[in-house]
């Protein structure tokens, strides 16, 4: 069974700051990892994913994430945030394989960007 944890429920930064949103997972096999963003009252938008190769993956709007097998982590980072980045960010994991297409989500991290 795969699980994913996001240790920070709420992160507050100022516009122009860098930010790291943390995600740790547990699963013994090969997995897919992804990040989604949900603006208030809206659906989920895909940001980026990792399943093999370069552990640093680039996403939309300047976001990137780094996979670390040793730390069981997939933290999301952005060098300079904008107020429009304020949203809830969900880390998700799914196991590879015929039954592994379903996503398991973390509880989400609310990012608040102050002007």
């Amino acid at each position, binding site marked *: 069974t795969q699980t994913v944890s996001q240790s920070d429920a709420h992160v507050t930064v100022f516009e122009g700051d860098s930010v790291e949103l943390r995600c740790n997972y547990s699963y013994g096999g090969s997995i897919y990892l992804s990040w*989604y963003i949900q603006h208030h009252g809206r659906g*989920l938008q895909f940001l980026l994913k990792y*399943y093999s190769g370069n552990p640093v993956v680039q996403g939309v709007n300047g976001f990137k994430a780094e996979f670390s097998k040793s730390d069981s982590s997939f933290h999301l980072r952005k060098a300079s945030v904008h107020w429009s980045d304020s949203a809830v960010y969900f880390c998700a994991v799914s196991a590879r394989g015929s039954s592994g*297409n379903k996503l398991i*989500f973390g509880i989400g991290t609310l990012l608040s960007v102050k002007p």
Partner: protein
Amino acid sequence: SVLLYQKPNRDICQSGTSLKIQCVADSQVVSMFWYQQFQEQSLMLMATANEGSEATYESGFTKDKFPISRPNLTFSTLTVNNARPGDSSIYFCSSRGQGNTEVFFGKGTRLTVV
């Protein structure tokens, strides 16, 4: 990519009634997934629906309460039976594209049970 259209966008229903939520994909997809999201909480996987077979439900969700149909590769419906105020939440359908690791989501259906 896969576009998923959900209908209705939102609905209000009386306790004890049933509500159907439709999800249509713009291309054929193998599996469709239904998620429930309570306000300010994460998404919980309810069930996985493949064409021509019974949906597979996750712990805490049952076929009697949330029957799901998947008559073809582009369509699925989720029914909320005997709706209760505790069912008030947003319901999302999702799917993974062909040969693609990315999962796409519909815009959600916000259900309020009064």
